[in-house]
């Protein structure tokens, strides 16, 4: 093993592969962070690149369902909140692409992988946003689920990812509370508003539960990621946490979660709930969700229509560099 996926050279000092592997494993075992210049197994690097890139892509594609309502937000205050939130998502995408770049890939390459369908993004963003209540429900459910997934990543073994997650989680938590606050206002409003909220809850509940991925017995990459401490809790454990957190909040809002099997289990001290339709999850991940084509088309169009701008910026920078070189030579 002489090169990594990124072509980085082996660590200096004549240390053998076995020593490097041992040192890496000791770092993980001591719960210390792996940093960009440390040696790491190719599989660890590949897994992280894939996970961080998919996370970044999800932030960027995830802007679309909510951005659809910025121009129509029904008050200036809601417009400002929503615009700031979607802007935060672009910022999260930027952090995460930067974190991925510490592993030796670049953002343009990751963007190509997204546009070519070689890397995925979270399936949740392939569902449509039909009313303004969806903005609140996405904040409450989707950001809530994202937090359950991401808070443990603040302790991920890879340093740059863990540190990016601390800030991302703080902002996601803010978004989740703002989403809840919108729903709280709407459920205290008109009958039409309450119906909009319930309808949005009905549509987003199951797809939100699917955000935690397939059930543990069917999650092929999980065991290795847990061993590497990239991941800290199983899919089913995180799904359970999300349900336990959300049920009392739904009760307080006066909305019904669309699951007839949902009930408190005294013995477990947790809620029992039904099984999401994981066949639907597989179909949506394969590209057959209601908005997959639309989301990719928007991203592709923005990228293509922006090409002349990026080329102009690069050409200007090159001219500037050569002008200043000439200036120094003169």
């Amino acid at each position, binding site marked *: 093993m002489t090169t990594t996926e990124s072509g980085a050279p082996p660590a200096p000092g004549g240390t053998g592969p076995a020593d490097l592997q041992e040192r890496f494993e000791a770092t993980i075992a001591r719960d210390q962070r792996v940093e960009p210049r440390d040696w790491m197994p190719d599989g660890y690097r590949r897994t992280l690149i894939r996970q961080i890139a998919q996370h970044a892509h999800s932030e960027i594609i995830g802007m679309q369902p909510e951005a659809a309502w910025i121009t129509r937000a029904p008050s200036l205050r809601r417009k400002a909140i929503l615009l700031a939130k979607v802007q935060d998502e672009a910022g999260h995408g930027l952090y995460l692409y930067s974190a991925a770049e510490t592993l030796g890939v670049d953002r343009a390459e990751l963007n190509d992988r997204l546009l070519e369908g070689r890397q995925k993004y979270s399936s949740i963003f392939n569902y449509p946003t039909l009313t303004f209540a969806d903005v609140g429900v996405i904040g409450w459910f989707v950001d809530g689920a994202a937090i359950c997934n991401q808070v443990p990543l603040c302790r991920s073994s890879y340093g740059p990812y863990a540190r990016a997650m601390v800030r991302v989680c703080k902002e996601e938590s803010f978004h989740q509370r703002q989403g809840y606050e919108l729903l709280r206002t709407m459920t205290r409003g008109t009958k039409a508003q309450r119906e909009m909220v319930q309808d949005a809850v009905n549509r987003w509940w199951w797809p939100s539960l699917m955000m935690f991925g397939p059930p543990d017995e069917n999650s092929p990459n999980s065991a290795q990621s847990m061993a590497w401490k990239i991941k800290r809790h199983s899919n089913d454990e995180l799904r359970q946490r999300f349900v336990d957190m959300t049920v009392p909040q739904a009760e307080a809002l006066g909305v019904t979660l669309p699951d007839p099997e949902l009930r408190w289990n005294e013995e477990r001290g947790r809620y029992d709930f039904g099984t999401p339709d994981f066949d639907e999850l597989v179909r949506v991940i394969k590209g057959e969700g209601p908005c997959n084509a639309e989301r990719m088309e928007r991203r592709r169009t923005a990228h293509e229509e*922006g090409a002349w701008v990026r080329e102009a910026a690069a050409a200007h920078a090159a001219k500037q560099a050569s002008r200043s070189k000439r200036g120094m030579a003169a």
Partner: protein
Amino acid sequence: MSDDHVYLSLAQGPDAGADEGDARWAFGTGFEDPLHGVDTAVPAGLDTAALAARCLALADDALVSAQRLTEWTTRAPELEEEVALANIALDLLGQARLLYARCGQTDGTGRGEDAYAYFRDAADFRNVRLAELPNGDFAFTIVRLLVLSSWRLAELQRLTASPDPVLAAVAAKGIKELAYHRQYAAEWALRLGDGTEESHRRMRAALDAVAPYLDELFAACDVREEVTAVLAQVTEAAGLPPLEGAALPGAGREGTHTAHLAPLLAELQSVARAHPEAAW
């Protein structure tokens, strides 16, 4: 960091156990009045009708500009531009809210910000027409932003001396924001003017498209010389011709708009007008 700590604080709220009900899971309750905490008394002897008209015009410029900028969201040429354009839109939206609030306090109607934004028709808007034109390509957006931000910055600089303390304070806050907007636009104007043949051609086309709407900006506030000088400095540095062309008759400040404002407002106002009794 213990993830359980963060997780629990989310599930329970920082004040779990406090008797505020589910407000502990919500952020943003209780921030309704944009001028909260500001002394809004109108100084004696001030022409309140003129003040209200000034606030309204500046607010409409800001709101309509912000609306156009938000249309770029998810369509920008690069992620950094997503963040920057949203930032500029947020600044302008913030200015619009403060100015509408001041308008409501001084025009005798006591209306709130949303009454102005959502429940007036195109003919009642007083924004300049340049703000309402469709976004076009990134070059048009940059040229328009350069012109509007240079102009608004010059206007706000004068308004820091307004006899109305609220307008003066809004202007003082706004000039910091506008200085950034202008810098952002000028930097892109340089890149695009100098960059490639295509970007240069697009910039020339954008200058031609913006030029007829320039004259209108200087009708109410005489900052023509100052703004023209700034614009000439940027176009020259970018290797572009100066902005000039015959002025189009009509004036947004008098309620004469292009055909583009009504559809912009129809979209902006659609949800609010479909639920006039609702609270958001």
